[in-house]
């Protein structure tokens, strides 16, 4: 039972930290996908938030400015994605990947222009990072978890939420009931950009203290897997993100655990790093059969005239 020793408060806090960006991104994806637009661009949207937040925080010394700027950047990028998907009826998966690729290259280019370094932005002073409370819980984490009931309320208890869901389930019927499907989808996608970017900003100015190229390391896709697993429902999204956050947190613990040895040698780092990715595949395969996506998800809507 030696391995039980890793289940400590430290692991709980690590889980919360790892789950934070996932919750932001997955809740963002929820708005977009509930309105009927696939959001494979979450990874790129997170990166836009992470990069902008790191730059603005470094320049101003104020993490709140940084967070705000990061969120706005995510909203703008999401709007571009929305135009491609909604106005031009682009293949949403393809357009989403284009956004992801853009955000691999663009931050590096700008970073060279600003700081002569493509790999990362300069280190932010420790005091300028987002503050932590209760022994290492970031302000952003508190906001992430607070977003869960808010999103739940907006989606299920407001007229906006009802219309958003209608746009994703049955846009024709929603349209004939007077709902502006196109506008709702724009709003859904832009909100997803704002939230995903907040998750990214947490990575660069909360968890870490600088932006590094592709620092999200697949979290946007894991958030999407969490969203599918949660059947596009906010509270379940939080639980799924905690699960995936746990798989990431545990990799750190295993690396330092005294029992994690093969023939007296530490387990190769590569196998530990694989854990979240392998689990994502397994969990997705195991649970996707029970999942039911919004009916009109991924199908462009063209108003009958």
């Amino acid at each position, binding site marked *: 039972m030696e391995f039980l020793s890793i289940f400590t408060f430290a692991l709980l806090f690590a889980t919360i930290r790892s789950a934070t960006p996932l919750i932001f991104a997955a809740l963002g994806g929820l708005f977009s996908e509930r309105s009927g637009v696939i959001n494979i661009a979450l990874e790129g949207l997170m990166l836009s938030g992470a990069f902008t937040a790191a730059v603005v925080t470094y320049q101003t010394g104020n993490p709140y400015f940084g967070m705000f700027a990061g969120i706005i950047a995510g909203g703008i990028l999401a709007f571009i994605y929305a135009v491609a998907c909604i106005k*031009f009826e*682009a293949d949403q998966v393809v357009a989403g990947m284009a956004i992801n*690729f853009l955000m691999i*290259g663009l931050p590096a280019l700008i970073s*060279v222009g600003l700081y002569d370094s493509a790999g990362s932005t300069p280190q932010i002073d420790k005091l300028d990072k987002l503050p932590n409370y209760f022994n290492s819980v970031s302000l952003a984490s508190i906001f992430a978890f607070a977003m869960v009931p808010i999103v739940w309320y907006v989606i299920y208890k407001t007229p906006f939420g009802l219309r958003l869901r209608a746009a994703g389930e049955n846009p024709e019927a929603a349209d004939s009931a007077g709902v502006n499907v196109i506008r709702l989808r724009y709003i859904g996608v832009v909100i997803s950009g704002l939230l995903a970017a907040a998750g990214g900003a947490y990575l660069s100015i909360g968890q870490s203290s600088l932006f590094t190229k592709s620092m999200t390391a697949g979290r946007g896709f894991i958030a999407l897997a969490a969203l599918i697993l949660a059947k596009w429902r906010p509270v379940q999204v939080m639980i799924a993100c905690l699960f995936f956050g746990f798989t990431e947190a545990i990799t750190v613990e295993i690396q330092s655990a005294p029992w994690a040895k093969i023939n007296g040698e530490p387990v190769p780092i590569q196998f530990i790093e694989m854990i979240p990715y392998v689990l994502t*595949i397994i969990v997705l395969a195991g649970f*996707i059969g029970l999942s039911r996506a919004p009916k009109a998800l991924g199908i462009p809507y063209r108003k009958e005239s």
Partner: protein
Amino acid sequence: MKIFREILWPVLAVIAAFFVGGIIILVLGDNPLTAYGLLLSSSFGSLRDVAWMLHYATPLIFTGLAVAVAFRCGLLNIGAEGQLYVAAFATAWVGIKFGGTAVNIFGKEENWSWFSLPWYVLVPLCMLAAMVAGGIWGAIPGILKAKFGSHEVINTIMLNFIAIALVGYLTQYHYKVPGDAIQQTAHIGEAAYIPRLNEFLPFITHDVPLNLAFLLALIMCGIVYVFLWKTKWGYELRAVGENPSAAEYGGISPKKQIIIAMTISGMLAGMVAIGEVLGTRHNFESGFSADWGFLGIAVALLGRNHPLGVLIAALFFGVLLRGEIFVDAFTSKVSKDLGWVLQAIIILFVACFQIYSKGPRTRGKV
């Protein structure tokens, strides 16, 4: 007229990308015309430059074909990167284990092999290893989609991370020459080398690693064309891509076609290893790929998922890959990352232009 329309949109996408790219270069404080001039002169300045450009285009022809075949079945294979990593390691492994003694990086003769095979057995065996390993890695997301319905985009991304970690482990712990600071395997035996074209063509200098894999890539364009448009299997694969429910009504199993398409896609991506391991570097190195798997997506889309289009688009991106080194070196601020931006803009524009022309779309809800 139809051909004109097929060509018009990709050309517009390229122009748009260069326009936006030019603005970015300008904002960074460099001259876009200088940068773009460097791109052209570095690929077309001399016959040697052309040969270099073709060398850079070779892996992109394979990954472009890989993505195109999957796309014809309505699948977006973002896993070509992982597939070519696994394939490259497998190819190097066969070359090490059956290639006899090889000179290691410290200049010493070493024997890592179980026994040595003659080249006419070893080279085909290495090629087979590339295709089988890539095919298996491609088949996994295909099977996952067919059996469980989980989307290939998430699974291929996850498998990319897993592939790179897995071969990284094997290299670091089992196949590295002791004392080597670089994450690379021992060298393959000389019997596994494939000839470089400078052995036959005097105008290509010895520093250009352009090799037989380029000709193989051209042949594969032809084979993929025949497969997709002249065989029953290709017809069935495309039918699923165009309309899965109609295909199923017509007696074609979409699930089977998804697995077949992803397997073929993985095999094609894996064939990158033939040129890179057997022709160019003669071992496997972590980080050897210049994101060819991802560039394959832009190549396939720009080439309208047609083998001839893929070839042309791969040459275009070959110019970018060849030129970005020069642009990086000879401009003050523009770095290699401009390639990602141009690629992203091209993909985005091609995707947006689809509204004006027909073509396969991806299927499934993520």
